[in-house]
């Protein structure tokens, strides 16, 4: 069972944050098809949020085909997002740990690492876009 957290300072709507966390959990395999999502009552109580907000998030997931509500029982995951990438992810994760060790040895702080990742991703995306553009 996953547990939700809320970023009070985020500009993102509460229900969207819940939807994103479910999707994230699906992506990394913390949740799989058939797993039960936390009960609306429990989420409302632990986060002190309006239960209608939780219902809204679960409804959104239902509309996207990711979850289904079983009246009187709860809300369950219908399908995952992870797919085949889960096995590859373990390998990528190992490589990442090695890379992180090297970057720390080189003196990079956490912020430096994130900045490096973001700028490199952006540059890569731009390079790929340019490559695929018609001559």
């Amino acid at each position, binding site marked *: 069972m996953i547990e939700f957290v*809320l970023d*009070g300072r985020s*500009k993102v*709507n*509460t229900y969207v944050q819940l939807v994103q966390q479910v999707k994230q959990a699906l992506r990394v395999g913390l949740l799989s098809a058939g797993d039960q999502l936390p009960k*609306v*009552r*429990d989420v*409302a*109580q*632990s*986060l*002190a*949020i*309006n*239960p*209608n*907000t*939780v219902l809204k998030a679960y409804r959104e997931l239902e509309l996207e085909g990711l979850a289904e509500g079983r009246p009187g029982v709860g809300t369950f995951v219908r399908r995952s997002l992870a797919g085949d990438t889960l096995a590859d992810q373990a390998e990528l994760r190992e490589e990442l740990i090695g890379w992180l060790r090297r970057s720390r040895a080189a003196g990079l702080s956490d912020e430096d690492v994130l900045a490096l990742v973001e700028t490199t991703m952006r540059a890569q995306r731009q390079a790929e876009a340019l490559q695929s553009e018609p001559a």
Partner: protein
Amino acid sequence: MDKVLETDGLGKRYGSRWVLRDCTVSLPAGSVASLVGPNGAGKSTLLHLAVGLLRPDAGSVRALGAAPYSNTAVLSGLGFVAQDTPLYRDFTADELVRMGGKLNRRWDSTLARTRLAQLGIPPRKPVGRLSGGQRAQVALALALAKRPRLLLLDEPVASLDPLARREFLQSLMGSVAESGATVLLSSHILADLERSCDFVIVLQGGRARLAAPVDDIVAGHRQLIGPRHLGEPIGGVAAVVRASHTDRQSTLTVRTAGAVRDPMWTVREPTLEEIILAYLAERDAEASHEAWGVSA
């Protein structure tokens, strides 16, 4: 969807002073609503009118479809937690639960006892000797034991410390999820409004400035920044809620009617808190200056 609370031009005066006037709101069933406004805006008055503790001087109020004043049928479906959760201080929590059973038609004694047991509230200590937070939980448990369809709370967390406040809200939200009751909670606290409620009533100067679902409010208001505005109409703007000017620039919080496309204006989406503050900030500047004998 039926309305659990409806007011129509509701007004209440003390002597010649109207503390509430022209108040028209309609609260849908299943909402968790917040009643916000500064001190003296009429929040307590509105809540007392809603539970029949006061009679209107103008207009009408209907709770659960009927006027609440001296109406036992309506009152048995209402739960009310008054400001600072007043309880008979010499009574123990156990005695209060038993008393509730004798005074109310519908009373779920087991629900009250289970809640208080889960919260670790001592049953045989006079409630006057409990902490503020514990007293608030007792008051809430007693209100919930009535299994009300509509629960009204008048600033129940105002004098609680942050932890007690959070625990109270957790309790409240958990029980709302279980019972499906409609809640109207009056509060000073604007932060975290969006995550706790889906309907907002803004009272200011005795009038309801806003009474709508949160989604509609956020979708229907924008903040416009642009050159000094002199009052001319702007395309897409239904009404200016609040305007602030320097000699060169104006910042307007507006209620929209369609999109604002004029490139002269930078359009921003304000947060729910910012929108409400804009409504609350509008005081009657002229009347106030007149009363002091100075020019505005």
